[in-house]
């Protein structure tokens, strides 16, 4: 040390400063470690552990008490004590035996060791011997000798070991025999207390109060900072999914799901009442559980819910609040903020079903995803897929009517009023409103709208082709018409709802909106047009979904009279709505705007000057139809191969938020908020924007309710570009493809409007009930009992039931099976592809071979004729009491009748008939068919005097006899199809021959 005065600073002071700053540094390093160590998920795991201890302890106590109450267990306790006492009493013998056993065991151990040495030496000698042989070495003899000696030694020792082993086993058996009773008791005790023991072990592991001291110390130490790298209690938990990928743009990485780090009780029902994040997942039968179709190990979390599986923090997991309140709550509680750069943030809870669509996209109805299903059905109804390309709906038909012959149907004035504001004519129409919206309601736009509508109508009528209408041959009666509408089945697809009724948006309700609400037809069109349309809709458009109900002239005239001349047909206020006069200046503006898109202003002016007013209207109309995309939903002359005008929606759910124009509207910057806003108010994003009429948003307003918009948002969020692995996709097998293909046809032609199929549909049933009450004078409870018999049949098991060929023929030209039904199976004019799809669909649904089923030979039928006939007769099963047989109708009222047996041979599959006779309720729950051969008393079911009382043979005989009934009929008629109605009226409709039947019994 040099002299202190040479120093500039006071060294003692510096020492102090140094000491203090060093301590502060140490403190900050500690702070840093703690800051790094403190993770929110550790807190959750700690909290969960206390819940786990609590639950386990409760269970343990319960098990303990159960055992206490269990007699056998208590008995065992006593028995065990006695056995133990007996065992202990024999202690002297035990000690001797043990000593002997130990001595023998010691010898045995030594022998085994010696043997091992020899074995190793033998292996080495073997190697030496082989080497010497190979090189023909001079040592060959020596090596051979050594090997031989060792081999002999090895054999000898092996023998000695075996002998010794045996001896040890004998001694041990003797020893064990003494304690065998005690062991047995213990084993049984263990079995009874198994659950308790498991819980006890668990408690020892997790409950600090139940731990041994060393375990307690280890438990306290293992989670300390830095030490926790080895084997901590609290650690990140994850599932790696190799075949599901996160799309990071330009790169796909396997999903790693760390959600379970905090969502700890997700797969355990014990925690279903705990607060988040511990709560059990809902519906474990479907999700998460290992036995469910969507186990966590295979599907993870984010593949359905979205979010960032690798995130271990509330924000980095990309949670999304489902409401503004929740958002506020989260911001306060978790400093929540949107995770901007993550393309797939978690889907808000109410839209979770969107995740199903990734794999189930081919299905028409996705079981359990009600919101999604509703959304899909809304898309079909609203026809979103016509303006917006959607992969799922490629090739679907246009939802709106064909306008190529609009001139024969409505007047130009009606068309103008309708186009301008469709909802004012029909409150629940699916035709959306293009005008009167937020971005075109100012006076200028309104004046323009009048001329736009006029131009469009002008074009439509100018391009309209004439369809010749035949005059109504007989006067129609509106009263009879009303009854016919109520009975023949119109209500499967149509409603008649003069005033708005608040109905919840359900799929069943939507099924009845397949066709328009049939009000105001008197204002819209003429009775003649309705008559012609009813008689043959396919004449107007070959692929219309309106089927032909094979109405007689009188019926068609009656219905036409009802629809056009009764109270529901008037729309006076609509007819009186003023129509703006033509304003040529505005029409000129329209024409100029469209012309200048391809030419200069001067050229446009010149061209326009050469146009007559009609030309201008037609030109503007054509351009406007293209602009607004009218041709998407309607077939319009001159627009046959146009491209859709809307944004493709196939991957809309993956669209970057940066590509959504929020304009000046202050809503959440999320896909779901934008979609919902757009659906509720399609033009809103034009607010405060300065735009020319051509630039304005043009998506029309469907007046969706909140529920409907939410359902649609669910679907849109599901339209993602995510590509789940091949194994995860549904529709992979041929059967599934057949089903999906069939479902599409079922959906497009609204089969479920009348039939129950795959457990849903039959939308018409309430209206059948109404008809029974109103026209058949049934009391409500009476009607309630029989309305199903008067409704179109439930098609459950149709694939098992009917022959494919019969079904194909039936779809082509339906015939009467149930004469008591007033609703008719209409003729749909299916293409062969559609009919095939349907037939395959039914087979695939029931997992039966397609297309052919087994046959029964004529010989068999002949053999069983007598026995079958007996069984069939009044004395035995009296089948004819309900069933029609050819011309013989049973007595009693029509609602107790059952189908005609003569149809059975061509229609029904023989095996199905057997199954049906055995247990009708199993095949068609709720059927009126009595079960004569129920499984419970099967052996006593049949009469003893036929076929020796063998029920199986009896059923077969009966079946064969019934098949024979059809064969008999087949002999007398050229066609096996039912053609036996008293007065078949043959009408030529649209060039095809179809048969209309009058129905007996009323």
């Amino acid at each position, binding site marked *: 040390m040099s002299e202190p005065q040479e120093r500039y600073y006071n060294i003692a002071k*510096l020492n102090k400063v140094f000491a203090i700053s060093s301590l*502060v*540094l140490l403190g900050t390093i500690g702070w840093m470690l703690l*800051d790094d160590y403190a993770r929110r998920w550790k807190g959750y795991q700690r909290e969960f552990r206390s819940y786990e201890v609590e639950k386990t302890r409760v269970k343990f106590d319960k098990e303990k008490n159960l055992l206490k109450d269990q007699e056998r267990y208590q008995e065992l306790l006593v028995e065990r004590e006695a056995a133990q006492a007996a065992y202990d009493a024999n202690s002297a013998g035990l000690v001797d035996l043990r000593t002997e056993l130990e001595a023998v065991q010691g010898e045995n151990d030594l022998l085994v060791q010696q043997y091992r040495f020899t074995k190793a030496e033998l292996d080495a000698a073997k190697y030496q011997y082989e080497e010497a042989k190979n090189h023909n070495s001079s040592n060959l003899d020596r090596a051979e000798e050594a090997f031989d000696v060792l081999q002999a030694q090895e054999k000898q020792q092996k023998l000695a070991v075996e002998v010794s082993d045996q001896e040890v086993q004998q001694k041990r058996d003797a020893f064990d025999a003494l304690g065998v009773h005690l062991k047995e008791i213990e084993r049984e005790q263990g079995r009874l207390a198994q659950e308790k023991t498991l819980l006890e072990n668990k408690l020892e592991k997790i409950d600090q109060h139940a731990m041994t001291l060393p375990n307690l110390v280890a438990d306290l130490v293992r989670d300390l900072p830095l030490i926790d790298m080895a084997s901590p209690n609290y650690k990140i938990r994850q599932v790696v999914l190799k075949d599901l990928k996160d799309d990071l743009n330009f790169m796909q990485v396997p999903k790693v799901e760390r959600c379970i780090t905090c969502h700890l009780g997700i797969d355990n029902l014990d925690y279903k009442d705990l607060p988040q994040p511990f709560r059990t997942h809902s519906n474990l039968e479907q999700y998460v559980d290992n036995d469910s179709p969507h186990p966590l190990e295979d599907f993870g979390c984010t593949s359905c819910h979205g979010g960032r599986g690798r995130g271990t923090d509330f924000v980095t997991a990309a949670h999304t609040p489902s409401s503004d309140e929740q958002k506020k709550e989260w911001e306060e509680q978790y400093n929540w903020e949107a995770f*901007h750069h993550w*393309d797939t943030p978690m889907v808000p809870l109410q839209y979770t079903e969107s995740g199903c669509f990734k794999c189930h996209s081919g299905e028409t109805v996705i079981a359990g995803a009600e919101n999604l299903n509703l959304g899909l059905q809304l898309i079909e109804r609203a026809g979103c897929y016509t303006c917006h390309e959607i992969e799922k709906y490629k090739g679907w038909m246009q939802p709106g009517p064909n306008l190529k012959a609009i001139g024969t149907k409505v007047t130009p004035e009606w068309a103008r009023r309708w186009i301008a504001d469709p909802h004012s004519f029909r409150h629940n129409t699916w035709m959306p409103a293009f005008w009167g919206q937020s971005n075109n309601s100012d006076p200028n736009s309104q004046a323009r709208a009048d001329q736009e509508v006029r131009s469009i109508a002008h074009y439509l009528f100018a391009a309209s082709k004439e369809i010749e209408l035949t005059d109504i041959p007989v006067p129609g009666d509106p009263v009879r018409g009303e009854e016919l509408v109520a009975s023949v089945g119109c209500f499967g697809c149509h409603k008649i709802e003069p005033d708005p009724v608040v109905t919840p948006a359900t799929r069943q309700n939507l099924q009845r909106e397949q066709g328009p609400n049939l009000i105001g037809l008197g204002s819209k069109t003429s009775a003649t047009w309705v008559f012609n349309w009813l008689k043959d809709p396919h004449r107007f458009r070959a692929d219309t979904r309106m089927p032909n109900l094979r109405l007689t002239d009188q019926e068609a005239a009656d219905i036409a009279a009802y629809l056009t001349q009764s109270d529901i047909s008037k729309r006076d206020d609509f007819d009186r709505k003023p129509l703006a006069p033509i304003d040529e200046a505005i029409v000129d503006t329209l024409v100029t705007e469209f012309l200048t898109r391809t030419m200069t202003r001067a050229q446009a002016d010149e061209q326009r000057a050469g146009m007559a007013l009609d030309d201008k209207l037609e030109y503007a109309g054509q351009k406007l139809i293209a602009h607004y995309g009218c041709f998407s939903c309607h077939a319009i002359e001159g627009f046959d191969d146009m491209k859709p005008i809307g944004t493709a929606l196939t991957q809309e759910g993956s669209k*970057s938020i940066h590509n959504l124009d929020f304009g000046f509207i202050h809503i959440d910057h999320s896909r779901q908020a934008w979609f919902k806003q757009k659906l509720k108010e399609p033009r809103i994003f034009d607010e405060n924007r300065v735009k020319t009429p051509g630039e304005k948003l043009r998506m029309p307003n469907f007046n969706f309710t909140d529920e409907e918009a939410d359902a649609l948002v669910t679907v849109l969020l599901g339209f993602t570009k995510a590509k789940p692995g091949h194994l995860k996709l549904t529709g992979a097998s041929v059967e599934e493809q057949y089903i999906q293909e069939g479902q599409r046809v079922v959906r497009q032609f609204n089969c479920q409007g009348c039939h129950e199929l795959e457990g849903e549909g039959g939308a018409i049933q309430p209206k059948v009930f109404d008809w029974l009450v109103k026209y058949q004078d049934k009391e409500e409870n009476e009607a309630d009992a029989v309305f199903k018999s008067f409704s179109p049949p439930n098609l459950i098991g149709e694939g098992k039931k009917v022959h494919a060929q019969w079904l194909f023929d039936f779809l082509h030209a339906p015939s009467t099976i149930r004469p008591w039904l007033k609703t008719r199976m209409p003729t749909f004019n299916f293409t062969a592809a559609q009919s095939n799809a349907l037939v395959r669909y039914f087979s695939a649904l029931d997992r039966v071979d397609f297309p052919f089923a087994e046959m029964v030979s004529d010989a068999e039928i002949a053999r069983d004729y007598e026995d079958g006939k007996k069984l069939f007769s009044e004395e035995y099963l009296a089948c004819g009491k309900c069933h029609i047989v050819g011309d013989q109708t049973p007595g009693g009222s029509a609602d107790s009748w059952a189908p005609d047996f003569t149809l059975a041979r061509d229609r029904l599959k023989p095996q199905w008939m057997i199954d049906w006779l055995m247990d009708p309720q199993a095949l068609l729950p709720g059927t009126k068919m009595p079960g004569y051969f129920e499984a419970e008393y099967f052996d006593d079911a049949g009469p003893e005097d036929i076929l020796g009382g063998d029920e199986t043979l009896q059923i077969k005989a009966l079946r064969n006899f019934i098949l024979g009934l059809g064969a008999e009929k087949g002999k007398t008629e050229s066609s096996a199809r039912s053609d036996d109605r008293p007065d078949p009226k043959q009408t030529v409709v649209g060039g095809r021959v179809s048969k209309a039947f009058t129905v007996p019994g009323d």
Partner: protein
Amino acid sequence: MEELSWPKHLINVLSNPKYLFPLLLGLFVFIFPPTDRLHRIHLRLRLDRLWTNAGGVFLLVLFLSFFLFGLTDPNFRLIVTKADNVPIVGLIFLVTFFLWFSMKQALENDRRMADGKKPIEADDKDPVLVWPDLVYGEFIAMIVCTILLIVWSIVLTAPLEQPANPAVSPNPSKAPWYFLGLQEMLVYFDPWIAGVVFPTVIIIGIMAIPYLDNNKKGCGYYSFADRKMAVSVFMFFWLVLWIFLIVVGTFLRGPNWNFFGPFEVWKISKLEALTNVNLSELIYMKLLNRRLPDNILVREMGGFLVILGYFGVLPLILMKTLFRKLHQDLGNVRFSFFTIMLLMSFSLPIKMMLRWFFNIKYIVAIPEYFFNI
């Protein structure tokens, strides 16, 4: 949206570099006058009082009150308190403090020397030991700095953003703060100039400083009066072309690299009319009222003349006029090197102002060969 109060509006307008930059440039020559004549004006305006204690308090109060006032505004708060930007706020205060501190010492020395005394540093000749006086002190300072950095990183989370998405470029995409000056240059120059030529020239220029500066005065002590030109030129580079551009780049450049006032919402949809012309278009179309000639050389003749005049003729004029004394001091080689460096650095503010006030994009524009100046 609510209307802005008038002071905020005024600040927004003033902070547009179009106005702020010329304003600061104008003030600069009076605050750091390079020549005697300007220095006299500087003294007459009593601007030297900035470097007194009172001046220091004034500067502190000025900046503090601006920030305190600004923090009442949510947009200002958002930008200033962003973890990325906090150091730049610190930079504003620290640079100002050290500037003031050094100038204060320089001023004191100047006064002493005007009175015929030696500078303060000359009096302070006591030797100090490396150990413990220097090393011990440095060691403690190191510890304190480490503490500061750790605490900072805990309290103000490291400015790491959320995981990036390669499909979404951040808007604005900003260079690290120390490169914001370069990024700003890219707005006004082609990449080959702003990204290649200028950085190279800057490095060469810095290396050349000891050889250019042959002024013996001012060694080992703070002084302004003895080295007006040197200090002024340095301050121009340091404060105007470096610090100011960093501050602008950090706080005033928003989405789409548009200018935003400190109290303006960073709207991604903001549009500015930015139609620019080249000098050749101005000459031929506006002045001569004719089409651009097809021949590239003829077309760009005007631009080449301007460049030639700027780098060839202007130094000669300066040599005879404003920089006569400098020329005598430095000699031909040093002078020409120095002047050309200086002119190059001045080309940036010139180019900026040409853009702002005349919408001129390029002086010489030969996009056919990717050669634009």
